[in-house]
């Protein structure tokens, strides 16, 4: 084989493996509150618990609510922005952030909203900051 070709193959292999390793590190897995306490930027899907307090505090400038994750555990979630537009409508949430002292500090929040008329339709997620 020509040395140039070998060099080229090495470059491609090196590039691809670097890219894949980095890609693998930058994606994470959906999880629950219990394992979230060991992670940074944990993605926790769940449902809003509307029976407990929620609201935006003008003192702390934070929106807080309670969310029940898929394992059935309910935790307080604090989101440092105003209440997203379609929060109440969302039938499912994904909060992204970290767990500290039993409170989940979300830096980003995705909301899955039901389609307008037909509940059988697939829903879609909306980023809280983009809604």
């Amino acid at each position, binding site marked *: 084989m020509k040395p140039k070709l070998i060099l080229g193959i090495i470059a491609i292999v090196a590039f691809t493996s670097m890219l894949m390793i980095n*890609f693998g590190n930058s*994606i994470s897995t*959906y999880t629950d509150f219990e394992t979230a306490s060991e992670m940074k930027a944990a993605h926790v899907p769940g449902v809003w618990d509307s029976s407990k307090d929620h609201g935006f505090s003008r003192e702390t400038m934070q929106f807080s609510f309670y969310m029940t994750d898929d394992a059935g555990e309910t935790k307080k979630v604090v989101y440092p922005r105003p209440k997203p537009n379609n929060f109440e409508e969302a039938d499912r949430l994904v909060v992204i952030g970290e767990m500290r*002292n039993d409170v989940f500090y979300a830096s980003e929040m995705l909301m899955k909203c039901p389609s307008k008329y037909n509940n059988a339709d697939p829903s879609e997620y909306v980023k809280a900051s983009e809604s």
Partner: protein
Amino acid sequence: MLEFAPVIGIMGKLTITLSFLFCVISMVFYFRAAQADNERQLKIGNWMFGLQGLFMVIASALLVFLIFKHQFQFYYVFNYTSLDLAPKYLWSAFYGGQEGSFMLWILFSWIAGICLMKWTRAPYKAPVLFFLALTQAFLISMIVGWRFGDFTFGASPFRTLAEEMPNAPFIQANPDFMPADGTGLNDLLKSPWMMIHPPILFVGFAMMTIPYCFAMAALWKRKYNEWVGPALPWTLGANLSLLTAIFLGGYWAYVTLSFGGFWAWDPVENASLVPWLIGTAGIHTMIIQRKSSVAQKSSLLFAILAYVLIVYETFLTRSGVLADSSVHSFVDLGLYNQLLIFMLVVTGVGLGMFFWRYKELPSPEKESKILSREFMTFTGAVLLLILGVVIILGTSSPILGLLFNENPTPPEISFYNDWSMPIAIIMALFTVLGQYLFWKKYDAETLASALIYPTLVTSLLTLASVILGGVKNPYYMLYIFAGFFAVVGNSWVMARLAMKQPKLIGGSLTHVGFGVLLLGVLASSVYNRPLLDANTQNYNAAVLAGEVVDEMGFPVSQTVEMLELKLNEPKVINNQYLVTYEGYDLTQQNRPGQQTYRFKFETIEGGKPFYLYPEVYPMLATSNAQNVNWSVDPDVRTGIMSDIYLYVAGSSYIERRNNQIEEQGTIQNVSDVDIPAQPADSSQSIEFKRGQTIEVGGFSFNFINFMQADTTNLPSNTSIGIRAQIEIKHAASGEEFLIEPLFAVFTENEQSFVMSPPVNLPSYDLSFQFSKVNPQTDSIELTITGLDETYDEEWVLIVAEKKPFISVVWTGTFLLMGGFTVSIYRHWRREKDKNSKTT
């Protein structure tokens, strides 16, 4: 309901079916024409292709007619329009849904086909049109809407509500049910930018089909060189359209959505960027193939890939696979399988033909030198491909992420930034070398000396911006250098060209635009700052230093990026502006219930004040009586140096409205129970500034001034004794009173006591107490007892950001567009001259 509406529906379905059939027939004739080089077969094929489009035009006209006549018994009309929609949005509703947007795409492809009939020469003509007809057949199949038992083939835009949801109770009761009104267009999409975005995008999609068809024709007819000439203007045109569409999408997102940027690496955005990158790579290789007869393989491959990626994008956005990770993907219409087959056929046929002919494809006899036009241009193409691969990888995370875990999330934004930045730096440096070598032969020495002055100018500019911008990150410095190098180096080439052959500046102009765009992206994203008052800024600095703890003793990590403003109480933000919230107007016109807020910005250094008018409105499509879904519409003040971007995240008005709605809800629920009247003699404390007037409970209170209290009646140990002059006006009767309540502090047994005896207004059963004084803010607190309304302060919560050099991003984009336009003209002109010579 129009009596003949059902007939129109049937006609619509029929014309689409006919369009599909004629498309398939034209394919057959084109195939035979291509096989046998038969002119007669080609002519018949052209007629069939023409008829195919004609029927699609009729079908589109019928759909537009149904939309304008508000025939809501048709699902498409019901789902995308409503009675109150302005005519321009009724027009755009035609392509607002998936089915209609397929029709628009088909129409543009058809027009492209007519142009090809006129402009393409043998031997490519028949095979090119065959492949175009093939892609048309797939597109039309998406909307034919044939039913075979449970299986449907395509989703017809003419299907009725009864066909869409046969099991819905209102349909079972009355199959001809026609809703009184449609669900309407999403408020966010009611924007002129969104009206023109889809047509421009589909022009790009339709044009990007043509290089694919040419590549396939070249492989079929084994003519691997000449096809790039006619394919180039189409590829350039497709790229210009895609770029314009991406720009419009980004601009819309910036001025309409509340994330305050033009790019978020959202899968749908990425999916539009990647075909553009690969198309651009194809343009590079086609240009050197045309000039020097090299890179035939890569030109073919890029032409195929660019279109495959368009179809892949269509698949991603329309099949529902991205529904979990994207903000704006379509709902699956049951077209998943059809789209998958479309994608597999386009990819399989494309790559299959390519590898089948691979052995006989021309290879370069000798390798190009590194410092040559061929090598540099090819490197440009490879860099674009690498960037494309990175972005595809990130976008495909729902599928490829499965390699890493079972429930993959999308990658972090930093994945895209970390990879695109170094690639962009290398690209920027190479554009200059490439452009120099493209127009003249250099060796290492002569090239270095030619680059001395551009490098010098670049260094000076970089140094100046590093100092002025306070850049500390060496990586950014390198990036800035690369960006300026691209701007300066390519401008140098362009200036020289413009003097001799101004028609040829397309390429260098595009590369200047690329450099400008890079600089704009960095400046606008890294130096984007929230506009905050000094208190919040200090708080944030403390948070970042880890000094703030919450009530549980844990460090607070989230900074505050919002600002609260009270009515007519100016705040200084960023030591630069004095911002005053001046109130809001309620309007019922465009969007019922919309509030337009008024903010006055005064520059502290002087200059004319300016206003920003952000809006908040109830999103009708998703709101109901129990729950209003408030949506924000930011306002942007555009400037050359920086933009100010502002939206209202909350206000006292919205809070009151929400409370009212909640109360109404509870009153309805407990309507049988007697609700005790609110006690009227509750007291409340209101803070007044000197000169401020507050209206509450039918009275207006004006705090005129402080005055020294007469000390003769006060205890001798009084240290402070002041009175507040307050003017009271009863709004209904116009009666006026002046009261002067006292606030005094006296010391007894080394303890301080406050004395603030109440002042009564017996005729209205009110009493007042001067309960606090606050010299710092020049204000007092007055406790009023007996008002039957509590005073709500008018406040707003705003998110404001200063975004430097957004204008540079747009300028870069416009330069790119300008460069593409010049190149299109040049290459199209050349092909036209060739055509007129041969005929």
